[in-house]
């Protein structure tokens, strides 16, 4: 029973989301809000249960343990971050936010350099042609985002001819990449739709004593 209710709720919410096919409507928004809300709440519960509660138990059990002292720093940052809700002392949360953003950005930067840029630049594999093509396409893509040029007599900034040509190549690369991404996304979406249709058909058929072919 509970599963049926859950499937029904799920089915209704699914219909609400799919209502977007006919345009933005309140049912879609409601479904989205429910999804976001439930997801956030679920995330919060997961965070508390998986992070805060275990840490709290640990610190409360032996606050003075040497192994627990390093946790004071994130704890303080967390408390300061909560002060952002209090306007007079909201500025105290800036340190926590700054630490999060700064540290995250730094780590991401290092990871991007060591995990993506360098491996992708030097890891063309054994095929030098592919590596060269990848490099050229990468350069073309970067040149597409180069908007620096000279201002003509009309006051319009005009890129040089060779830059415009290369930028066009980069634009083509981007289009292909985005098309691949979009197709993958489309396939994914169709796959998800098929799965949901099949799921609910199966459940409905199961309820009706039927089954899919």
């Amino acid at each position, binding site marked *: 029973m509970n599963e049926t209710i859950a499937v029904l709720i799920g089915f209704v919410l699914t219909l609400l989301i799919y209502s977007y096919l006919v345009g933005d409507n309140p049912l879609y928004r409601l479904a989205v809000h429910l999804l976001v809300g439930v*997801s956030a709440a679920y995330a919060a519960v997961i965070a508390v249960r998986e992070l805060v509660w275990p840490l709290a138990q640990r610190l409360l059990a032996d606050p003075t343990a040497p192994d627990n002292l390093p946790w004071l720093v994130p704890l303080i940052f967390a408390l300061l971050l909560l002060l952002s809700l209090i306007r007079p002392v909201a500025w105290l949360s800036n340190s926590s936010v700054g630490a999060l953003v700064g540290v995250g950005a730094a780590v991401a930067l290092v990871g991007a350099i060591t995990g993506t840029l360098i491996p992708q630049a030097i890891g063309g594999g054994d095929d030098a042609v592919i590596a060269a093509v990848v490099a050229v396409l990468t350069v073309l893509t970067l040149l597409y985002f180069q908007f620096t040029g000279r201002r003509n007599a009309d006051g319009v900034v005009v890129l040089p001819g060779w830059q415009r040509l290369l930028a066009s190549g980069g634009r083509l690369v981007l289009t292909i990449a985005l098309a691949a991404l979009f197709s993958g996304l489309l396939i994914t979406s169709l796959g*998800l739709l*098929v799965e949901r*249709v099949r799921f609910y058909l199966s459940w409905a058929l199961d309820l009706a004593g039927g089954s899919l072919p």
Partner: protein
Amino acid sequence: MICPNCGQQNPPDSKFCNNCGARLTSGEKTGAGAPESFPQPHGADEPDALDWGEDVPDWLKPDDAEGDEQVISHVGEDLPTWLLDEGTGPALFEDERPTGGRESRIDSGEEDEAGPGDQDKQGLPEWLRGLAPKGTGPLPSSRAGQADETPTPSLDDWLAGLDESEEAPPAPSWLSGVEAEDEDATGPVDSWPDEPQGGFESADDWLSDLDVGDDVPPLPETPEEPWAGLEQSGFSVDEWLAELEPAEQQPEPGAPEPSAAEDAEEEPGVPDWLAADVEAGASTKEPQLDALEAIPDWLADLEGEGGREEIAGHGEITGEDEGLVGAAGGAGDDWLSSLEDDWREEGVEADEELPAWLKEAGLPSEPGTSGTDAGVESPPAGPEEPEEAPAEAPALDWWPAGEEAPDWLMVTEEPEEAGETAQTGDEDADWLRELDAAIGQLEAASQDVLPGVPGEAAEQELASEEDDLETRDTAEEGPGEGEAEPEAGGAAGAVPDWLAELEATSPDAGDMAEVELSGWLQEATPDESSPEEAVPAEAEEPEQMFEAIPAEGGAEEDLPDWLVEVTASELAASDEVEGEAGRWPFDGETTGEGPEVTEILGGESDDEIVGADELPDWLGDVVGAEAEELPAYLEDEEAVPDVLAGQRLPGWLEDSLPDEERAEPTPLEELPPWLVPPVGAGAGQPETTPEMVESGEWADVLGELAESQEIGAELSAAEIPEWLEALRPQEELQDRKLPADAEPVTEGPLAGLRGAVTVMPVVAAPRSAEYTGEPEVSQEQQEQAELLRQLVRQEPQEATRVVARERARPSPWLRVLLTVLLFTAVLAGLFLPDLVAVETTPVMPIAPAAEVLQAGSGRPVLVVFDYTPAFAGILNDQASVLLQTLAAQGSPVVYASQSAAGLGLGTTAVEGVEGLQTQRLGYIAGETVGLRRIARCLGAESPGAAACESYPPGTGEAAAILLLTAERDSLIDWIEQVEAVSETPLVAGVTEALAPVAAPYYATGQLDGVLAGQAATAALAEASGIEDVRLSPQPLALAAWLAAALLLVGNIVYFFIGLVGARRTRKA
């Protein structure tokens, strides 16, 4: 202390006699016996008060260190003792306290010594010339203008007689006594009458020594008998004094006055001038007397009787002094004779300037003037007292008999100074020796002038000529004197020109400024060029100035107010401090011993005084400046001459007056309009006294001025131009415009107020702009203006266009159609599985992924569920296949997730696989940071390392990482943060949409395997033998084909729609 002059008892600490004002010296003996010495001059007490020149001989300089004895030693060489007493003080050249005739004597002696024929050397000695101001010309010995005139008899007359006397003693005994008394520096001359006679007995003796030459006459050593030598020589002091007596009594009205010639005959032994010198030397040298002595000769002559009366009014002269006064002419005739000789020799017309030496030694300095003034202040021969003039004749014995000496040469008015001069002449042995030499030169000169008349004859001739000169001088003195001196009246032409010139500067002429002085004399005296500068000298010494004010010159109202005040108040007050502040020149000489003189002089009036404005400037310096008080005759307001009474000094003269004596400023009524200060400015000015208003002085002066007119009176009335009216202050305009019965304001904030200023018409009136011409606008400017108008119009139209775009959105029905088509395709695939044959091939090979999983068989595998429920339809099947595979090869699973929902999905997935060993690592917080932390644990060499303490067991020992994610960031983070750090193989199970992202990493080897989408899952399940996972690719394929068809159709449709739209746009 007993006054040596009058014998009056005075307090011990008195310095001056309370009775007669004579100086009381501390060392003076009270005895009224023999004259002990002359009173010390002022300079003797203050030797350092004067800056002695280097040229002044030592014997003239005061020397306190050497004392009296040393001074006396000098006397034996240069000067007689009596001169030493006088010369020890600086008063010789001091204006304030003259020594009385000594300088005059010196001057005359030096003149004689110089001789007439030596222009360069005949002048003053170097020390005396050094006294003259720098830059002065030669001494007036160059008066050659008198050369053609009859030479004036000089000393040679009487000296010749002296030469013949063989019985002349070396020095008169009386002089010896005087000399002895000089050492004590006490003994006033007033004590002479007690024992004077013996001293003159030897007068001829020492006089005879004059002819001896350079031999110094021995001084008598018996001071007790000063007159012995003189009496022995046949000279009778009594007679001599008797002869002098009339001369002193000249001012006495009605008294018979013997002529000069008669007196000369009566005194054959001792010349009158010598007697006068003797008496003058014995007289008390009061500094105040010098003030009167400074009056020039001509001034004294003009004063007439007033001069004597003036003297009598301020001091008393003893009989002895009077006797000596006559001898003062002797002192004067010395220098006069030399002077005349000079003039005679040069033969040059005398100029009108006073001789430099006279200015130096005679006029400005009292010592010099004593001898000179002795002759100058001769008894006046005014019309009131015509008989007094002849009484002066005995004083000038050198003057030719029968000739009347000029008044200004008379010495009877200066008894004290004349006496000093006489004494000087008696005792100055060296000096007389020099005189003797000079006389010889004079004689020689006279012989040259009169060739053929040798010796005595020449002298007589010179004497006659000199008599003629005196006669002329007397004749020029005026009718008064001419009447009083009938003997001289006929010989007026004999007066030399230089004397006439001197007399021409008399007050009768009324213009003292006409007297010209020599260059250096003018420098020595205050500048008289401008009255403003000359006045201070007079103002600073008012008492000296008024000494010469003639009482008969004007009415009482001519006296300035300030002078009236002075005479009434200050001068009256000065009597109270007379004993301390100072004395009038004759105060100290007024004794009871000379009652006759006192009476005579006391009876004189102050009517004959030279006017203050007529007194030359230099006279202010000549007159002694020490006396700070007005003379006695001015102390009485009634004695102020009518000329000056009630009168005001001119402004320029008042400025020079002392503050206390300065007259009040000119009343405003008398000031010209342009000098009248503004109202309120003269609040502090004194009011004009009635006397000032009544006095006619200013009225006369102002009457001569042109009548002042009011400023602008001469301008004609005219209208103020408009432009000027426009500049008038608004306040004034408002005041004029406001009517008396102004209506109150009825409106506005000022309602109810009367007199409110109305709004200016200019402001209230609308402003009308007038165009002077059409503006010139170029074609370009017009185009620009038109363009601006278009832009303004187009701006709202653009907003409308935005609304039009919204209308162009696709129809929702199209979306519904698409939705239906999609669902149709899906359902068709589900319900029609065989409708189309679909062979699924994974985009990326699954073999590498299966190999990694298979390589980690039996070892823990970290399965990460980083996907959300939205992708659960795809990834749950993939996770199920993978978990079953792991479960099948016996690999425990440690599952974790960076997403909260993923953790739940993972748990569900893990729990849905049977026989799978699982470890829940849980939620991985911190994204990249959390991943970096896990990476440290996964790469740990030893199991259970510190980095893996917080992780479930086996995390660090994971054989592979199986990442199930539908998010790009999750895939990238795991690749960059974990795979790049650790050696653990990473297999990514992703959706079809994320396959393009994972493909490059897979190509570079950063991903060891990729399972992309349902196709890969199905292939993996088929390869793993898992059957319960049912995958139907038909619905997906149909949906994909549908989608592809819709995209293609859509692009075509929109392509054509676009073309159509473009055409419409172009057409529009």
